[in-house]
């Protein structure tokens, strides 16, 4: 397949995943804000912006005014924000259009329809009364695209590159959420174990759709360490770091099998995988959760760059 095509499906998948994650994060922020006083709500919204790495962009437009309405419109549809959901959808759709021949008709139509539908939703500022609906629509459309991929795509290199785009992006997202939660969200260490703390952890779980799964596994008890373990190490949970790494590995293995050789990306990923193989939540906390996550995010990024280089995405 063409290097440009691999690039196109990889980034299509990354943009779709990022749009969905942003919507999930906003949903969690929204729910928390509804149960908080104004000041705490602002801190929540600030953390949402921080998690997606948009602090500078947001403050350039709105200063310190971290009100819900400004935050969600900035992240959903602001033209000044290249990381908005709307910009992600356009990016995904443009990539899909430029690699249409690599996609099944169903995948292309799902992407195109999502873009059509959601750009209509996002054509005007989103009012509080419809925010929940809009966020649900983003999640639903992305689920539709994923379903079309799952149900119709040949399991070949095109599929491998698409999946790797999804999991690079998802791993990055889960890691950032954890990091922000640990280091920013809690006003001080004294809050650990308080009811505020528990509500925040629950919102983190909600944002990755892991709240119910976690309760099944832990009989309803919210425990920060247990949640961190769940989000980092549980191989059964589709948004955990370990799960994402496993998927990256199996897709890269698919490429090695098809191409008959490995590349630098395989080597890098092996390094990352080893960390997970031996890790326990105790060893991670001892090492420092923030340090662990910072290293993870950097390494994940290096894997992405290695894939782009090794498979000739660019001229």
């Amino acid at each position, binding site marked *: *397949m*063409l*290097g*440009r*095509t*691999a690039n196109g499906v990889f980034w299509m998948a990354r943009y779709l995943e990022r749009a969905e994650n942003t919507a999930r994060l906003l949903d969690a922020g929204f729910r928390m804000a509804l149960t908080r006083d104004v000041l705490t709500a602002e801190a929540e919204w600030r953390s949402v912006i921080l998690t997606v790495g948009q602090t500078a962009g947001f403050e350039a437009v709105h200063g310190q005014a971290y009100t819900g309405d400004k935050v969600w419109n900035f992240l959903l549809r602001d033209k000044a924000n290249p990381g908005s959901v709307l910009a992600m959808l356009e990016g995904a759709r*443009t990539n899909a*259009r*430029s690699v*249409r*021949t690599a996609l099944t*008709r169903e995948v*292309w*139509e799902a992407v*195109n*329809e999502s873009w*059509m539908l959601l750009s209509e939703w996002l054509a005007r500022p989103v009012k509080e009364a419809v925010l929940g609906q809009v966020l649900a629509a983003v999640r639903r459309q992305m689920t539709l695209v994923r379903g079309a991929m799952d149900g119709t795509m040949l399991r070949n*290199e095109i599929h491998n*590159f698409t999946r790797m785009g999804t999991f690079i992006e998802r791993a990055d997202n889960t890691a950032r959420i954890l990091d922000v939660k640990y280091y920013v969200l809690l006003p001080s260490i004294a809050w650990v174990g308080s009811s505020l703390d528990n509500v925040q952890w629950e919102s983190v779980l909600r944002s990755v759709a892991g709240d119910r799964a976690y309760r099944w596994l832990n009989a309803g008890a919210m425990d920060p360490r247990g949640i961190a373990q769940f989000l980092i190490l549980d191989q059964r949970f589709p948004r955990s770091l370990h799960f994402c790494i496993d998927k990256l590995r199996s897709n890269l293995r698919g490429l090695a099998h098809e*191409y008959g050789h490995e590349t630098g990306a395989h080597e890098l990923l092996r390094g990352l995988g080893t960390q997970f193989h031996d890790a326990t939540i105790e060893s991670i906390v001892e090492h420092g959760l923030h340090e662990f996550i910072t290293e993870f995010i950097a390494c994940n990024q290096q894997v992405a760059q290695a894939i782009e280089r090794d*498979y*000739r995405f660019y*001229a």
Partner: protein
Amino acid sequence: MGQTTAAFDEMLTQAGGVRAAYGDYREWFDAQDPALLRRKNGEAENFFRRTGITFNVYGDDAGEERLIPFDMVPRIVTPNEWRKLSRGIEQRVRALNAFLHDIYHRQEIVRAGRLPQRLIAENAAFLPQMVGFVPPGGVYTHIVGVDLVRTGPDEFMVLEDNARTPSGVSYMLENRETMMAMFPELFTRVKVAPVQDYPRRLARSLAACAPAAAGDRPTVAVLTPGIYNSAYFEHAFLADQMGAELVEGSDLRVVDGRVAMRTTRGYEPIDVLYRRVDDEYLDPLTFNPNSALGVPGIMDIYRAGGITIANAPGTGIADDKAIYSFMPEIVEFYTGEKPLLQNVPTWRCSEKDSLAYVLDNLAELVVKEVHGSGGYGMLIGPTSSRKEIEAFALKLRAKPESYIAQPTLALSTVPIFTRAGLAPRHVDLRPFVLVSPKGIEITPGGLTRVALKKGSLVVNSSQGGGTKDTWVLED
């Protein structure tokens, strides 16, 4: 102007009866619930939008995509009419290829005094790089679209030849898909010749033109300028249907004496390039040095026999509108036969007497730029204001050799579906032709373009025209 009343109606006889070709269809149509048909019409539009069957309009906001309006009443051609048309088209396409070979070699037609030398020498579409070179398989124009208009029961005329990069074949195919999805029962009732195998035929025809350097299974790729090109949908569609790669200039480079595409495994050679990029942008080393759409060095590889370019560079000389006016002579010169299909009468403004006539009669004529395409830069006398006509006369006087003029023909009409029922609108027809050393194939059907405004003769999609499914009936 009375254009509409004077025109030949393809569905109805003058007495108000239904012509034979439309008998079965009309019987079906009359039995339908109009409200249901209206609903289906809306569904068709949604289908096109969701599928992304769009084209981009130049001059609009960059990248704006529009739908080409689709009308659900088919244009129907009888087996007899089609046989006659195909014979005429085949003769014409054979002549076009022979003509191209000749003007890039001995120019016998000029020596014989049948075509003025200056028409070639001064023509921007004539490429000196092609002189003395024979393309692989001897084929110059691999894909041809012939624009036909009809003015009476037996009067089909050629309005234009498209020998460089004819577009619209994807609409022919999608229109048929749409019709079959909307009205499956119609196709069990009426026997319509299939068009769906066009992409397979195209792939086979292109592969048959592969250069000597190719192996048993030639690699075919479609070269597109990219997603902002007006016909991008078609480029992607054809590549997809042929199972070929859709490449852009930035994907290609010359490697080890072959044109190769950058894949995830490295560079892989291409044998046949179906290019949808104009000559001028094909090779920055040979033509426009500022172009990023093409491949530096591809012309050298081409001339060395390392790749087939379809259509061949320099074929534009054959569909130039100034050459068009000589097509009757060209057909006769190379086939030794009388042309089976007539040209529309054409005045060459480069000729003094013709110019005088055209200037005197601008209000009744259609004047076209010799090198223009797609309905840009033309004057339609009968629908233009006095001011527009005067402005155009100035341009015409300044550069008469850049223009030809034709009478406003009473193009035939086929009804379209409107809220108020069926209403006649003018149409033209572009059948698609494939040429390889193994022969000439014409897909039974084509793209019917239809003017959507009452009385309008403008069918170009860039000017607001629509399309219809075209049915060639089977015996």
